[in-house]
């Protein structure tokens, strides 16, 4: 992990980072040590520290509670949509603008090639630098963002390009202008149209799956989710505010909402969990993205073989089966 991020990690990860910093400084000491005996001592200390780091990482990451996963999904070093686009796609051509109002940087769209497959890539864009983050409203899209995405997806349909959608948003932007320009209508139309687009759609949640804002580009044939991500009807903070009038009880809310990848599989929403490198995607973003790539390719190669009718029937059947209820005797 790079230096800057060390100060900006979730509480539960801090002991590991501190230990790693100690380890690194001892390694530097070793490199500078001339005395052989002392070097040997430092070497053995380093070995102990390495073991400690591994043990600590095991115990922390082996026992993540739902709130920890939410925190990891928001980790500043986690790969973002823009990283995926830059690392696992070739010849990316960004396509901007909704042709009606403006370009919303909070959603990224464009042509891309993944392992030779030409596709339409889209995803929520959170931004890397503070300036970018502000421009993107931290990944919260406005109606024009959803309309841009729909336009590009319809173009993908026209040219027979499969769609890969990366989900990573705290939610659609809750603001005055967003409402004025029809936030709910934009999301609703995207959802409706995505249920019928005649090309394969793979959605992959790479961080936060925040409610309607996520679903606005999140309907498809396959629902993948990275190991340390969440998907929820409401943010844990929002849920805690409603239930206990205290946003600080978000960790309790994260538990009751059943928003972790395992829960989402159990509830019949997600199809597959994409594993992350040891200790989380932020510890080895490149490897994390490579793993996602293999999963995307696996599903893509399955989907492109399906005739359109079958594809759409399967998409419909999957959606129709979502939900749990009982049918009592009348």
């Amino acid at each position, binding site marked *: 992990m790079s230096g800057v991020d060390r100060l900006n990690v979730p509480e539960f990860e801090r002991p590991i980072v501190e230990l790693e910093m100690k380890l690194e400084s001892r390694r530097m000491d070793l490199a500078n040590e001339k005395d052989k005996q002392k070097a040997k001592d430092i070497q053995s200390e380093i070995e102990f520290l390495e073991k400690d780091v591994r043990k600590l990482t095991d115990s922390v990451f082996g026992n993540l509670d739902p709130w920890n996963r939410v925190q990891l999904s928001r980790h500043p070093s986690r790969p973002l949509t823009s990283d995926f686009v830059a690392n696992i796609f070739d010849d990316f051509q960004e396509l901007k603008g909704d042709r009606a109002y403006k370009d919303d940087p909070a959603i990224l769209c464009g042509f891309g090639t993944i392992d030779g497959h030409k596709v339409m890539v889209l995803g929520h864009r959170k931004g890397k630098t503070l300036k970018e983050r502000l421009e993107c409203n931290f990944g919260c899209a406005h109606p024009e963002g959803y309309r841009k995405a729909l336009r590009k997806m319809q173009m993908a349909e026209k040219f027979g390009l499969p769609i890969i959608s990366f989900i990573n948003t705290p939610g*659609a*932007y*809750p*603001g*005055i202008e*967003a*409402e*004025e*320009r*029809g*936030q*709910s*209508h934009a*999301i*609703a*139309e995207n*959802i*409706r*149209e*995505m*249920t*019928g687009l005649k090309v394969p759609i793979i959605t992959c949640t790479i961080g936060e799956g925040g*409610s*309607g804002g996520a*679903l*606005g580009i999140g*309907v498809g044939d396959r629902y993948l989710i990275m190991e340390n991500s969440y*998907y*929820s*009807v*409401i943010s844990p903070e*929002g*849920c805690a505010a*409603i*239930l*206990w009038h205290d946003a600080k009880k978000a960790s309790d809310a994260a538990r*009751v*909402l*059943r*928003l972790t990848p395992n*829960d*989402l599989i159990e*509830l019949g*929403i997600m199809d597959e969990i994409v594993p992350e490198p040891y200790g989380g995607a932020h510890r080895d973003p490149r490897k994390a993205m490579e793993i996602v790539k293999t999963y995307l390719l696996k599903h893509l190669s399955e989907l492109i073989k399906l005739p359109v009718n079958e594809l759409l029937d399967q*998409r*419909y059947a999957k*959606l*129709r089966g*979502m*939900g*749990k*209820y*009982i*049918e*009592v*005797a*009348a």
Partner: protein
Amino acid sequence: MKWTLSRKRGAPDGLWMKCTSCEAMVYRKVVEEQHQVCPECGFHFRLSAEQRVEYLLDEGSFDEMFTNLESTDPLGFKGKRSYKDKLKQAQENTGHREAAIFGVGTIGGKEVVFGMIDANFIMGSMGSVVGEKIARGAEEALKRKIPLIIVSGSGGGARMEEGILSLFQMAKSSAAIKRLQDAGGLYITVLTNATMGGSMASWAALGDISIAEPQALLGFAGPRVIAQTVRQELPPGFQTSEFLLERGFVDQVCHRKDLRARLISILRYCCKDMPAYRKAAVSRATSKINKEAAKEAAKEAHKAEAKANR
């Protein structure tokens, strides 16, 4: 299950009542005449499902469907009160199993699938059963080739207590509505106070025709959330029906008393089997010039139109 007049719930006592909006003391009988609208400020009071059916559908025509669907507690959700308790309470208060009530009925003699969300049932929020009923309603309308009308009243949006399952009801309901609309079916939404969040951002926004009751709160994010985010006062009338009308997101804002007549009129325009004169016009346009047949068709069309107007 056929609804009869005996299903009407007893009206509360007292000649006078206080308007919950303008706080004026108003004569209850006048409020009832106005279909539960305050004569002073025009505020539309919340209706029960029974009242809604009475005001909109032809008398005795409503035949409820999918009545056996009941919510479970798939997450084992416990807040201050458990979800199971909330469900039980809502069932007792409304006399219905769930917030969504769907069935087949007639409006001005025209058969439709009619659905409504009872705002008295956990704020009309959408869980698995509500989503399922909307989807089934749309599928039923498609199967029978009749229009679908839904009265929204879903201020709770996606129901938090069913978590992710509620969220994906947005996609499920929209998928079924798309199939209906793609096949040429008509879907009308009547937006009532309040319709927010996941409901507004899916099925409630998708009507071919969208009519709102006056002064209803309609939007995506709740006003409190927005105020907290933007840290400024919200403009007056923000997220009301009139606000949506001005910005082009609904076709009409209509007083509840006129709603039935408006629906009857819209059904007349949009239903394929009704306007014979339109069929004639199409056949005229597509066939080679045949003056005799055209005259005949025009005559027939005139008759059909007169009949429809009657």
